[in-house]
């Protein structure tokens, strides 16, 4: 079961690994990112952030879909992290049983000037492409929220559009 699908433009960092993993009670973390899946250096540095007691994989988005379709995935509490809304949408389209999508941090480091993007919150600044993915995502049956850290209130993304 995917307990949380997090969009974070920094992928795994201290906040995510330490705090959210514990809060969610996740037993496995999967980074679904095409670039990271081809980059052993990034895989190594991402792994440093993951607690030793937690299983960890870096997959391309397509390979992640295959992984989550494995029936054994239902027995685990899996925390999935992607770095853009488009990848979250791809997973939601193709994988059943995602409990929640959390748009935490997005669009800050994509190289597109902020003047050409829409700022939905301090840490959510989306290009036109990402905005259209988000609009489709909030129409899916999976709840789409934003919550950077657990003690912040969870906000429905629809209210920010």
């Amino acid at each position: 079961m995917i307990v949380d699908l997090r969009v974070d433009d920094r992928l795994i960092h201290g906040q995510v690994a330490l705090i959210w993993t514990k809060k969610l009670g996740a037993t496995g973390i999967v980074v679904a990112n095409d670039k990271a899946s081809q980059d052993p250096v990034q895989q190594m540095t991402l792994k440093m952030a993951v607690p030793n007691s937690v299983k960890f994989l870096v997959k391309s988005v397509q390979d992640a879909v295959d992984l989550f379709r494995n029936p054994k995935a239902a027995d685990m509490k899996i925390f999935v992290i992607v770095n853009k809304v488009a990848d979250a949408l791809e997973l939601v389209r193709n994988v059943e049983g995602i409990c929640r999508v959390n748009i935490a941090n997005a669009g800050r480091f994509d190289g597109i000037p902020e003047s050409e993007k829409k700022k939905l919150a301090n840490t959510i600044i989306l290009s036109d492409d990402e905005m259209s993915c988000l609009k489709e995502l909030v129409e899916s049956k999976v709840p789409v929220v934003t919550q950077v850290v657990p003690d912040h209130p969870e906000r429905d993304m629809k209210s920010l559009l």
Partner: protein
Amino acid sequence: MRKIMIAAHGYLAKGMKHTLNLLVGEVCPIEVINAYVDDSDYTIEIEQFLKAAESEDEVYIFTDLYGGSVNQKVTALKLKFDFTLITGFNLAVLVAVALASEPLSREQLNAVIAESREALQVVEPEYSEQQSDEEFF
């Protein structure tokens, strides 16, 4: 309620609180002592903090250096007040204590400290094969 004070030389406590809030949000009240940045007597502030605590509160003071003067002064206050004093703090131990879901027993606290101590280490790049899907499940 859990109450935390960070007491350190200079502005380390202020900076540590800022970093902690950035990482975990404001999960519990955190007071800071920036010792020796002016001539004021910071022990008065520490005493006020301890006096204000209720008996059911879980009170921690973190100091920067074992043997340092801040820690010496706080150690002396242990004779008058009931609180947990931890010295030589790092970010890992502050995060772990701030985020603990239940009050920590002494044994749990020792485990948290042992784990946080491991965060202090020499880093060497280390490539390893990823787990297979089967190992993951």
